[in-house]
């Protein structure tokens, strides 16, 4: 694998996806192009069913585009990629494994030796200390999602894909998770591609926000969010830049929902 310095971490080049079932043909994505720079945090927002999740599956190689090309870290994506971390809306933890062993699943599947120390670091970083031995059903939704995040970061992936990771959490927990995710992103320098329904979340976390059109999804506009690197949650929310960006995105989504 050769990665040229300076190339985009993720390159989506005029990609389209059509699903064919017996009864109907659905175009999930038409002509999407997007470049994500290494270390960048990009959020994707858009109305339900616009193909946001499909876009992440394309980047991970879980899904093949009907046309167009996706490059991840310089290589064309042809099948499931192992150099990414993935977090879903549901934590998708193994019920019979403790939090720590759920995190270590990543290492076991990869045959990574000595992952224990790394797991402990992540447990510390995400505030899971003290819950290492708890089974998933003994953890709150927020805690479960932290475990899923640790599992996704264990192998130090250069690209982290997050599909509505905080969608099932209550508003307060969600804000806490946003703050933590932002901190973790700054500390790890990972490229993050986040799908979300929350405009506030997208603006708070990202360098850029991609607003998509309703199905068949296409990029409507890409908004640069120019917020300070160190962000206090409530202070950031009060910034004029924040509200301008949020209002703009809301307007775009509102406009795209009109007939």
């Amino acid at each position: 694998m050769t990665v040229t310095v300076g190339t985009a971490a993720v390159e989506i080049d005029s990609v389209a996806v059509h699903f064919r079932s017996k009864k109907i043909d659905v175009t999930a994505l038409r002509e999407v192009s997007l470049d994500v720079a290494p270390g960048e945090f990009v959020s994707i927002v858009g109305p339900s069913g616009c193909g946001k999740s499909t876009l992440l599956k394309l980047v991970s190689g879980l899904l093949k585009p009907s046309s167009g090309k996706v490059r991840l870290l310089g290589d064309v994506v042809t099948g499931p990629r192992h150099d990414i971390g993935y977090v879903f809306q549901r934590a998708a933890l193994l019920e019979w494994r403790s939090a720590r062993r759920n995190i270590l699943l990543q290492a076991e599947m990869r045959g990574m030796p000595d992952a224990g120390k790394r797991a402990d670091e992540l447990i510390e970083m995400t505030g899971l200390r003290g819950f290492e031995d708890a089974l998933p059903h003994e953890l709150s939704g927020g805690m479960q999602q932290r475990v899923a995040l640790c599992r996704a970061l264990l192998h130090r992936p250069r690209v982290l894909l997050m599909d509505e990771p905080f969608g099932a959490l209550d508003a307060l927990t969600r804000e806490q998770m946003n703050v933590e995710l932002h901190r973790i992103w700054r500390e790890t320098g990972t490229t993050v591609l986040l799908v979300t329904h929350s405009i506030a979340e997208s603006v708070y976390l990202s360098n850029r926000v991609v607003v998509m059109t309703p199905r068949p999804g296409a990029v409507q506009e890409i908004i640069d969010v120019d917020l300070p690197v160190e962000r206090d949650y409530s202070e950031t929310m009060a910034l004029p830049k924040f509200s301008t960006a949020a209002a703009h995105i809301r307007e775009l989504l509102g406009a795209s929902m009109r007939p």
Partner: protein
Amino acid sequence: MDWLERSWRPVLLLVACLAVWQLVTTTGLIAPYLVPSPAATLDVLVEKQAYIWHHTWVTTYETVLGFLIAAVVGVLAAVAMVYSATIEKTLYPILLFAQVVPKIAIAPLFVVWLGFGLVPKVLVAVLIAFFPVVISMVTGLKSVDTEMLELASTMGGGPLKTFVKIRFPASLPHLFAGLKVAVTLAVTGAVVGEFVGANEGLGFVILQANGNIDTPMLFAGLIVMSLVGVLLFVLLELAERFMLPWHVSRRTSAVTTTI
């Protein structure tokens, strides 16, 4: 005590039944040659214990052997069907047909083919116990989260690791439900096998007692036979508790005590 809390109701009901049984027999409401008294039944159980032990052992052996074969073959068939659509399409209709054929009616044929020994009894037990194992295992293997499997493919562990670490353990709760049904059916299978042609086993004991109108022995045989089924069922519950503490702890006790 947890077990006391759970068992006093059925024990009370059992005692009540015994009392009614004692009452109808001692008052002469029902003739002793039709229904022997509990005392007479107990007498037989004690006096003829060597005889009963021998035949109980034979039936238990046939049952356990049949059950184990059904479990192994059933699990293997289920795995094959889940991993290969071709095998599923080929095997499933035949399995369904085999389930519809009354196994009790095939038993005499087995005697013709295989004689009066151990094999035809085990075979009937296998045939009866096999179906619930296959169905529960297929359901279990298919119950695994698609997101979990997608995650596994981004972890790059390959199909074998995915099976060992994710799919198989996830299917165990379903499998145990099937095994518990199967083990009680296996007892029936072994006894049916003995009915159609045997010179030992509890089925043989019952047929002989029937011929001699020896109702105390008939009752004794029935009781012992039921106890064998109950014992095997309880052993499976214990195995489940030991192997799946994470699952058992999540169920309510009401479910644990029902089949």
